[in-house]
């Protein structure tokens, strides 16, 4: 029995291609000043951007930073050349906006190197079912450095080389932060 690999692949990727094509048209209209086209782009992508903001920063900051991302996207639409999908361009812009916001907030919550306390607290918590916390909640309790690397690598699919460049780290630090995050989160898997 033969497997219809090509047909399955086509079915799987056709919606993504159609989405990218539709986005490209909307982006061109929006770049020409069509706010309705930009609103359609917003509707199509707000979930992913807001989720990224929630995980990279916090639930409290997610609405404000999502608004900032789309305002910045509107202002920078002229730089979108269609070399990549609009969603990819928007996502990268969003990461940059969020990292800049993190820098603006200073070192208040930045703990790349100075302490393992939040991570240790997570790792030492009981793992009985009644004590398990939601995976997203556990993610929020990671130190900033480990959380950002984990989100960018395991959730968003960036490579360590890209993450190191974005965060200003060496690749080895990105790898070690990812491992620390995974080791902490494994105790909070639903059992």
């Amino acid at each position, binding site marked *: 029995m033969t497997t219809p690999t090509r047909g399955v692949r086509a079915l799987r990727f056709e919606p993504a291609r159609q989405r990218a094509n539709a986005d490209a048209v909307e982006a061109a209209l929006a770049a*020409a*000043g*069509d*706010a*309705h*086209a*930009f*609103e359609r782009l*917003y*509707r199509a992508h*707000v*979930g*992913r951007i*807001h*989720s990224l903001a*929630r*995980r990279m920063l916090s639930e409290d900051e*997610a*609405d*404000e930073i*999502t*608004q*900032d991302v*789309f*305002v910045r996207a*509107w*202002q920078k639409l002229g730089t979108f050349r269609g070399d990549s999908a609009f969603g990819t361009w928007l996502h990268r812009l969003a990461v940059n906006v969020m990292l800049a916001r993190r820098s603006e907030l200073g070192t208040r919550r930045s703990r790349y190197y100075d302490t393992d306390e939040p991570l240790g607290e997570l790792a030492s918590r009981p793992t009985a079912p009644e004590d398990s916390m939601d*995976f*997203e909640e556990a993610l929020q309790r990671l130190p900033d450095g480990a959380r950002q690397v*984990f989100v960018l690598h*395991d*959730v968003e699919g960036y490579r*360590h080389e890209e993450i190191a460049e974005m965060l200003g780290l060496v690749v080895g630090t990105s*790898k*070690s932060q*990812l*491992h620390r995050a*995974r*080791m902490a*989160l*494994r105790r909070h*898997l639903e059992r």
Partner: protein
Amino acid sequence: MSNHWTDRLSEYLDRELAVADMAEADRHLASCAECRATLAELREVRSRARQLAARSPGTDLWPAIAAAIGAEPAVRSAEVRPIRSRRRYAFSMPQLAAAGIALAALSGAGVWLATTGAPGAPLAVSPAPDAPAGAQDVPLQAASLRAAATYAAAIGDLEAVLADGRSQLDASTIRVIETNLALIDSAIAEAERAIAADPANAYLNSHLARTMQRKLDLLRRAATLATTRS
């Protein structure tokens, strides 16, 4: 549990170890049940991360974004959710009075614009910044220059109000407002330069009016946003 391979299990999982190290890790895992269990958990964590679903915000953020970019919101103003700030601010009575004068001037400018056109060519200022270029071109003739002066005066009043209230606005709000004002100012300057070279060009006159209307809308929204946050 801690050994040389425990710290490298994520690299093993992601197949980022050198070939020789992968082989050595395979040999270790074959004899270490604890590391195999840890590896399975790490794999599950990675799998869970990949399955995390995107979730839209609980409230629609578009109205505030539309206001920030100078677009007409698609919902009633009562539903607009402004960019959130932890700070509270309010204009003083003199500032509110100045805002009222400025808004009255704006209304007057709009009426004046709409009623002082050349015979047979009713004047109109498009309220839709996203209208296709040329879709609502209406010749404004020489009157548009006087209208522009009136607009400029009204804009100046509102800018003064916002300047006075600047210290009471949150930084991100100021940044958004200023960025958008700068963009609109740039467009206005460009239109004025073009009109200076071609004063009778109906499209340019209409474009200038639309751009100034867009600036008025943004300033009006900014003032409303500030005065309603208390």
